[in-house]
């Protein structure tokens, strides 16, 4: 009988990667569980759950009877993900750390280390599938290819996504049936280590407060003041402290951030939902990654996703700029646009 293939599975302590590991064991692979320790620091108002997550991952590994290791990527994560993220925010962009984490940590450092330790494959609990390249998950609501479009073809060829063909409720149900203690564990939110709500607090740990003006886009009128333009994102409408004559500037319609002047530290807002800054029929991309040698020619009739879980929008792409038939709400610069041909993820780029 031939030796079963060895799979190193990234286990976060959550139900998805736990079920992924369990399925691999059931399928007869030689499975090694690994907890990637990327971040462990507590922050104001946020207790980092890494120790509990690690214990949850290990508990499942022990239950499955597989070896379990902790790989410390904190230094690399700080350099490749957090420092990148801070640099982008300082430039006025709104980067996506999950995309960077997959590209630099999970499907690079983890992949390389696993292969060096004798892995035939790596596996994660992502909702995605492989086949003719990277494919969208069966659970359209959970599909995570938006975060995976930049991982290398080489790593992908050696990757198994055991739960990519399942629906989230099925994953939970299976976990519960098999007695996994974390079947109903609350999902971690947003970015790997800090919930979406916490991003501003997180940034304030590293970026100094710099008071500046909030101006109305159309009139240049000063409506209020902010504590640093870098903390604001295009499209944001919460957390704006606008002063001025109540009722006159605020007729019940919310103001949106429509532009930022990072150099002058000015945040521009508008009530006009038709403001040209909010909508776009074209989006220029930078740092484009095309998967499996795709691209090079005009691609029409493709689908584009501009945010995780956002609907797929028909578009065409000339290798540099996305063209839409109908105007789309413009995502913040630094976010990703991910391209699809049906279920196949073609690649994507960073929105300028």
């Amino acid at each position, binding site marked *: 009988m031939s030796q079963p293939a060895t799979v190193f599975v990234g286990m976060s302590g959550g139900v998805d990667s736990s079920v992924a590991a369990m399925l691999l064991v059931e399928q007869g692979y030689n499975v090694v569980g690994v907890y990637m320790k990327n971040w462990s620091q507590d922050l104001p108002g946020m207790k980092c759950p890494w120790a509990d997550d690690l214990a949850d991952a*290990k508990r499942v590994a022990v239950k499955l*009877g597989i070896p379990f290791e902790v790989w410390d990527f904190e230094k690399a994560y700080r350099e490749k993900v957090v420092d990148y993220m801070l640099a982008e925010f300082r430039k006025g962009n709104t980067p996506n750390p999950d995309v960077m984490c997959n590209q630099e940590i999970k499907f690079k450092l983890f992949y390389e280390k696993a292969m060096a330790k004798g892995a035939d494959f790596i596996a994660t609990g992502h909702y995605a599938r492989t086949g003719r390249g990277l494919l969208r998950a069966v659970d359209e609501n959970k599909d995570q290819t938006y975060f995976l479009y930049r991982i290398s073809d080489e790593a992908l060829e050696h990757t198994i996504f055991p739960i990519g063909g399942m629906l989230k409720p099925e994953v939970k149900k299976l976990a519960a049936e098999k007695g996994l203690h974390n079947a109903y564990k609350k999902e971690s939110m947003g970015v790997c280590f800090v919930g979406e709500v916490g991003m501003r607090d997180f940034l304030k740990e590293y970026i100094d407060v710099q008071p500046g003006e909030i101006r109305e886009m159309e009139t240049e009128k000063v409506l209020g003041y902010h504590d640093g333009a870098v903390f604001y994102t295009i499209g944001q409408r919460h957390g704006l402290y606008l002063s001025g004559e109540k009722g006159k500037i605020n007729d019940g319609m919310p103001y949106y951030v429509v532009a930022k002047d990072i150099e002058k530290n000015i945040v521009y807002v508008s009530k006009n939902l038709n403001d040209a800054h909010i909508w776009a029929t074209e989006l220029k991309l930078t740092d484009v990654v095309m998967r499996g040698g795709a691209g090079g020619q005009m691609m029409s009739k493709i689908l584009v996703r501009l945010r995780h879980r956002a609907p797929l929008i028909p578009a065409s792409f000339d290798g540099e700029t996305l063209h839409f038939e109908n105007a789309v709400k413009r995502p913040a610069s630094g976010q990703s646009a991910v391209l699809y041909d049906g279920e196949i993820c073609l690649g994507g780029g960073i929105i300028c």
Partner: protein
Amino acid sequence: MIYLDHAAATPVSEKVLEAMRPYFLEDFFNPSAAYLPAKKVAAEYEAAKGVIAHAIGAKANDLVITAGATEANNLALGIVALDGSILYLATEHDSVRKTAERMGGEAINVLPSGVIDLDDLRAKITDDTMIISVALVNNELGTIQPLAEIAEIIRSVRMDRLKRGVKRPLYLHSDASQALNLLDVNVARLGVDMLTLNAAKVYGPKGVGALYVSHEVKLTPLTVGGGQERGLRSGTENVPGVIGFAAAITEAREHLNGNRKKYAKWRKILLDGLQEYELINRKHSLDNFLVLCYNGIDAERLIFLLEERGVYVATGAACAASKGVRSHVLKAIGLNDAQIAGSLRITLGETNTDDQIYEAAEAINEVVLIEKERIER
């Protein structure tokens, strides 16, 4: 459930809970209030403090009630902030170790047995030394430290200082959190100037502790406000907590002799029934502490396997293990990383029965075998 982690937490006994109950409900008054019912509560609070103090051979006014042992340890070591330096045992709990480290304290070595190296202590005492902190019973190993001998050394240093005209005082502080279930603790016999007590380890409520302070020591308060506890620890008195602590310490003293016999018997059952372990705390340890090393095995995996079987044990100190930090205590007694990773801490207590001890031995043997077979595969 078979609970074998009594050094981490103990359940509140029925008697303790009953004693506390009225002070949450009808007798809820602030002891500082002027009317008679409040004064009655104040008197009962003082009486309860008297019971706690009496248990260690002290008086109510010698105690400062705190919100647990950590605060008591911080309060005790705080005197050094004024003038002087700290020596602490390398195996002290973090509430002593980290406080001392922050104040530039120096660690005293332990022998491989876990007992203080008295020669190292003598060598490290200088004219700057103001406080020496040594726990009566170590929280990971159960090691009992020879406090009377340490006090003797301190007495001779004091004499020598007086002779040479050195004015700096020298005090002995000890954390006795783990001691009260098995030892007859008496401040005069131990020769301590300050002693930390903890209700949560003697079947009393969590978040209640006390610091015994001799009249020689002038403490600096960490908390200021209404001037409670002779101005040393402001904040409205935790009346139910202290009533509960008094009930708990009284029970502990009643059980003292019975406990010694019971735990010695259970310890023997475990040591005879368990297989292929190395006993780490062979000597100078309380009988309810067993630290077992399973070479080549990851003890945390054993914990998770035992947890599925309803048996709860610890590796090293409970809080250290969960953060992936290697136990500084096991390191201090000379264990290598693999030995530390393979160490289980079992601490017996009131919740246990004879049957449970036999069952626990079986369960531990079973999970050790599971891990051994997995590793061999």
